[in-house]
């Protein structure tokens, strides 16, 4: 009983295929890996199924695929403009991975890949590293003018530059922490309220009456969590676009 109600237990990582020793490192196939694989399979499966029967009048599945595609395409076009086209596959992949892992996490007994900070931080650091690489390869060292806004008096320029640099370095942290924090907190809160229902329900008639309120709360929170799962994927994708925009057009 106690283990079923423990709200943190759902985030535990365990080995599915025991630790292999490869090149001096302990590498094992965990449940997190398993669900990452499932996420990739689900995304690929849905999109292949959606595009396999390319009808002129789309059916349900094809509509979903087209909406999915167009949603990201519009986002990339709006934020990055025409030359952002080549980043569309990246943004689409990131969005799909985050969205489907958030959504799969909503199933009971499923593991939420994005509820671990190491996963979201890796995604975020990858995005910001890509921004640096693209910026330098496109604009050379002139890209670093991003940190030196013009029209600022010399006296405070160093401070402004340092602040700009800190502001840039804080991007991977805010990007990764937000996704991780939302998923972790949402699942914990959901589990806590569901735990109230179980505990109160086992106390007899009065407990069952008392369990109505947390049950209603859990239902409402489930709906909210679905919204958050989508919104966080959306925010992750649009911020990827906004940051890539800094690499393409370092204007300030």
């Amino acid at each position: 009983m106690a283990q079923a109600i423990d709200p943190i237990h759902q985030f535990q990582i365990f080995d599915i295929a025991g630790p292999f020793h490869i090149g001096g490192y302990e590498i094992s196939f965990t449940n997190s890996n398993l669900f990452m694989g499932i996420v990739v399979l689900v995304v690929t499966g849905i999109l292949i199924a959606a595009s396999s029967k390319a009808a002129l009048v789309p059916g349900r599945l094809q509509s979903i695929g087209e909406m999915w595609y167009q949603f990201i395409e519009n986002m990339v076009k709006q934020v990055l403009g025409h030359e952002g086209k080549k980043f569309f596959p990246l943004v689409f992949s990131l969005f799909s991975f985050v969205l489907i892992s958030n959504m799969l996490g909503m199933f009971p007994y499923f593991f939420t890949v994005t509820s671990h900070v190491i996963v979201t931080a890796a995604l975020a650091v990858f995005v910001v590293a890509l921004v640096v690489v693209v910026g330098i390869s496109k604009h050379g060292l002139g890209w670093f003018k991003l940190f030196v806004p013009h029209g600022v008096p010399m006296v405070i320029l160093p401070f402004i530059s340092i602040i700009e640099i800190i502001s840039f370095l804080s991007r991977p942290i805010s990007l990764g922490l937000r996704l991780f924090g939302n998923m972790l907190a949402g699942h914990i809160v959901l589990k806590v309220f569901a735990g109230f229902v179980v505990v109160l329900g086992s106390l007899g008639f009065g407990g069952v009456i008392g369990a109505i309120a947390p049950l209603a709360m859990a239902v409402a929170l489930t709906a909210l969590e679905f919204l958050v799962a989508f919104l966080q994927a959306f925010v992750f994708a649009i911020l990827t676009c906004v940051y890539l925009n800094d690499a393409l057009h370092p204007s300030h």
Partner: protein
Amino acid sequence: MTSPRNDKTPESGSPKELGDLSERLKDLSGRIAVEQSQRTESQKPSASLQGATGYAKGYRLASEFVAGTLVGGLIGYGFDWLFGTLPFGLIVFLLLGFGAGILNMARAANRVPPAQERFGSNPPPKAAYDDEEED
């Protein structure tokens, strides 16, 4: 819109019918154009999501601020760890990080449509940005 539904009967005079058809066609294309322009206009700001993104924006503002301060503190602590000047680097960089967090937040709030101001005319909005940052 001169009651196009009145002459639904196909047996009416053919020349009149033809003229009526082209009239109706013109009317229709005009209406389509109006509808389309209205739709694109209404889609641009809303994009069917702008309402829900208020929630996302709130989260974004909070996390931007926290991240800026956190990174500032971390840099300060690392600086101290390197040079053995424990309180001072932390103090200075924490304050700078605080500033960076505020800057992040202001940017996130200002840049509601991130694309538009940046594409069209670069210099004027830039000047406005810089002025705000200096204060």
